[in-house]
């Protein structure tokens, strides 16, 4: 019996997270007595198949169809569902990325089976027991899964992708799903780059400065770092009050609420009114000379030091790594 592992790729470039799923899945398959088989869907999929065998895929199912021109959750979900049926797979998994969780949820809806997202470990058995992530990692849930088809995703970064010591065969097997036009109604139609229009409220990266920046000119270093990260600059109320930045840059209860992937708070003590605007950030890196500052205590990460030395060093390091 089979464990199918959906491997995500973007027009032929394999997503790193897929190898995490394989690393996790091959071990699970072994313990559950299942055959660990990878699935690649869509045009150019074959060029992504290279590392899969080395990571434990006994077979690689290549699904292609004229409607699978690009990613489409319904089409991918239907394809994976048909493959599940045709291979007689009893378990299907993916990495818990946006696409992984989405496609497995589609399979679950089509099969009318439960789906457990973002597991960190799984104990197979008649009933599977697993630990999964809640609250974005702040809590873990022990759960049980009772189903004909076990549908799960493994939490991103739960394991590190590593090749097996004894690479599997990884034989490529072609699969052509039977898709109707309706399945393609949610296929990606276009790709756009929106350089304009990234706002403080929606930017994935915000570099914020507070009283500690010291002057209007001091913000040039924040602009440099934000530029290197494709983000924008924000500030605290003390900065606005000093006239160093316009009010439209102010993060806080009387300014903008932000929710970036990372907020780099430089020279900001962390007054509550500022925190109210910044607390939705997924990650916060505080840069402050005072290790006991409120923002340092509230942040997930901190660098203790003078922002005017730390920020340029970070910018330089980014440029260096990008070559």
């Amino acid at each position, binding site marked *: 019996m089979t464990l199918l592992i959906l491997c995500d790729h973007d027009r032929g470039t394999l997503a790193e997270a897929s190898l995490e799923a394989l690393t996790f899945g091959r071990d699970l398959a072994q313990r559950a007595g299942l055959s660990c088989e990878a699935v690649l869907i869509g045009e150019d999929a074959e060029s992504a198949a290279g590392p899969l065998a080395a990571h434990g895929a006994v077979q690689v199912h290549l699904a292609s169809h004229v409607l699978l021109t690009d990613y489409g959750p319904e089409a991918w979900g239907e394809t994976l569902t048909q493959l599940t049926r045709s291979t007689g797979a009893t378990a299907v998994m993916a990495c818990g990325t946006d696409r992984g969780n989405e496609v497995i949820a589609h399979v679950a809806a089509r099969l009318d089976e439960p789906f457990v997202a973002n597991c960190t470990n799984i104990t197979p058995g008649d009933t599977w027991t697993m630990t999964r992530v809640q609250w974005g990692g702040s809590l873990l849930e022990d759960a049980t899964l009772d189903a004909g088809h076990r549908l799960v995703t493994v939490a991103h970064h739960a394991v590190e992708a590593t090749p097996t010591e004894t690479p599997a065969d990884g034989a490529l097997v072609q699969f052509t799903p039977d898709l109707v036009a309706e399945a393609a109604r949610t296929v990606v139609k276009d790709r756009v780059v929106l350089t304009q229009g990234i706002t403080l409220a929606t930017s994935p990266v915000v570099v914020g400065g507070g009283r500690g920046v010291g002057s209007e000119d001091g913000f040039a270093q924040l602009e440099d770092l934000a530029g290197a990260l494709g983000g924008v600059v924000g500030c605290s109320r003390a900065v606005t009050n000093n006239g160093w930045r316009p009010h439209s840059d102010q993060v806080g209860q*009387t300014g903008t609420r932000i929710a970036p992937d990372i907020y780099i708070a430089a020279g900001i003590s962390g007054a*509550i009114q500022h925190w109210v605007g910044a607390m939705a950030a997924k990650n916060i890196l505080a840069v402050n000379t005072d290790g*006991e*500052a409120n923002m340092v205590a509230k942040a997930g990460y901190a660098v203790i030091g003078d922002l005017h030395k730390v920020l340029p060093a970070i910018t330089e390091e980014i440029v260096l790594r990008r070559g």
Partner: protein
Amino acid sequence: MSEFPNRANVVVIGAGIVGSCLVGHLARLGWTDIVLVDKGPLPNPGGSTGHASNFIFPVDHNKEMALLGEQSANQFRDMDLSVDPGGIEVARSEERMEELRRRMTSAKAWGIEAYLLSPAGVRDLVPFINDDVILGGFYCPTVSVVDSLETGTTMRREAIETAGCQVFANTEVLDIETVEGDGGVTAVSAVVTDKGTISTEYVVIACGVWSNRLANMAGATIPLVPTVHQMADVGPIDILAETNNEIGYPVVRDMDSFCYERQSAGSMEVGSYGHRAILHHPDEIPSNEEAALSPTEMPFTPDDFDEQMEQAIELMDMLGEAEIRYAINGLLSLTPDGMPCLGETTEVRNLWSAAAVWVKEGPGMAQVVAEWMTYGYPRVIDAHGADISRFYDGERSDEHIWSRADESFIKTYGIVHPQEQWGGRRNIEVGPYFSRQQDLDAMFFQARTWERPQWFGSNADLVERYGLEERPVEWDNRWWSPITVGEHLNLRENCGLVDLSAFQVYELEGPGAVAFADRLAVNKVDVAVGRSIYTPWLTADGGFHSDLTMMRMGVDRVRIVTGVFDGGRDEFWVRKHMPTDGSVTFHNITKQVTTLGLWGPNAPAVLGQLTDQDLSQNGSSYGSIVPIQLDCGGNRIDVSLFRISYVGDTGWEVYTDWDNGPALWDAVMAVGADLGIRPTGGGVYGSSGRLEKGYRLMGAELESEYNPLEAGLARPKVKAADFIGKEAYLAAREKGEPEALMTVLTVEDQTDSHGRRRFMQGGNEPILTPDGNRIVDSHGRASRVTSAGFGPSVGKHLLMAYLPRELAIPGTDLQVMYMNDLFPVTVAATGAVFDADDTRMKS
């Protein structure tokens, strides 16, 4: 960060406004080896300071709060961390307008600039206010807004730079350790934190809402409860943003909706004291890590705030379209009596409390505590009302604290009458006559935990007998009855029986008892057995700490009798100074003895029916304590007759065992029936009787800011024995004539500008010159009414007040302000205005 110390002279716990200012003040007073710890980060450790609205209205009816508020405002100004946008209290009701007139009076007393404004006048200052819904406003241009967190930072920095203070944030106190020393005295010894243990001489708890939990670690109590004050920040509002200023318009207190509106840059903070009382146990407060915002910014409960929102929109229409951007159930501390908890804890030596302090009094209160720790008593102001030792055990339970907080939260912006009584937690302590007094329809006033009859409904017939009337204005009449005048006149004509069970009675016993007692008292305690003295106890600086009676009950036994309002403080003062060598033991016998006061021209005749002993001044001389037996309905009851009077007529304080009380009461009432005896309440004993005699009351006329010479209580000679405050007392005597003198003034015309007869309450009403100017002595002490009441036997309303020496001359014409009206007064005496030579009392 420096290495974590294992040794300190003083550890201050809590780095909010109070703890931070305290280390600064300790440094100024020369303290070293100071360590400040807080479990939260800096500059905002997560306590109430972090979400305070930070405005200071300087006018308060209460002297301690007003003067410490002023002191604090000055300290904020000195640090340049304060601006003065001004502030307006607006009235929506006539009753509130009257309260604003009372505010004007208090403003005058403390010398604070203030104006009564018409609705249009308010609108001139606050153009977005709806002047249709208000009747007027009380405007105070010196209302300030401060930066409390930056103040903390500044004061900590000063302590670090000048005294090497060490500050440790993110350091949680796990325990406060104590040791038992000589004489069974428990003293603080160490603070255990998650970073290490610090052994220390002194510990100060400045932990705001968590203070009681910290005190409990050492076995002490700081009676306060974390209480919610809701606040919402709404904006953006263009007219506010256009000021380009943190605060460009006066702070508005919408008193009748218990709300304030305070500009905060481009938005408005709407805060409320009008919602239901929401109390929390300290254990319910989340940690910094668990809290969504900060520990004391608890989740907003919008249902509680809706009514306030409607009223806020009614007052300022623009608020309706403003967005609610941040709203909290902010925590602050409430105590059972609304005053702070300052001073050394009664349970643990060298463990101090600096708690239940608002930002507006923070720096001043910190100075008080620092001085107290340094000099043995604060210098900047008498802080007896904030002294944590004022609380009795019955006031330290959660049940009591919660009941009081539940009842008092709404009074934060309420109109509170000086005599206002509590509704809940009554009858905590009652005398042995309580059921009899209930049968006599007594109106009980509660003095701390003790119930005392103020007047008796059963004496209503006296109103007709003496042709008495209610007072024309409800405020003056509230918590008052003309019956009290009837009881007074009856006592002067016949006699009255007064329940004095609330007296706090202690005994010192042992070979060192008399010597120790003499160390406490200004006057000589080492008198003949059976004699008493009335004496001040002084602070080291020579001001009043206490004022009470001491009786030489035996060769090695001294009894101390003090008033119920001061019992806690006085007992603590005794215990603190008591020798630890075992030569003196202390007994609190308050609930073993009961006291009845029997006074009036018929008092000897009444008592004479119960005994054959000589009750004349020969057999029972003034000031003597004579043990005798009274025949009470066949029972022979042992009593001590103490010939003394606080009301100015002859008679006794009769002390007996608590259990004998009811039989004594019944016997005296029975034999006194034909001699006109009436049960008589505190309205006579504590007010009209004593005022006619000019007797001083601790906490009113007597405070640490005044010395016995100024109070008129200095004896011609000073005893040889040493006593606390002697040096300062001698120095004051050396200077000759005192700067100010306590006087009794008569109100010459009680008619107000509306033609109504008014009765001042004794709530710090200012005494003014005929030109209407404040009177301030050379020490900066303003003349104000310390006690007031009608004197039935002199037919005048009487006021007590300190006046500069040159004005303290009988016949001097001055004025008093009451409810913003002026009334002519005349200095009548520095002593009694009734029976000045004490003929009635000593005959």
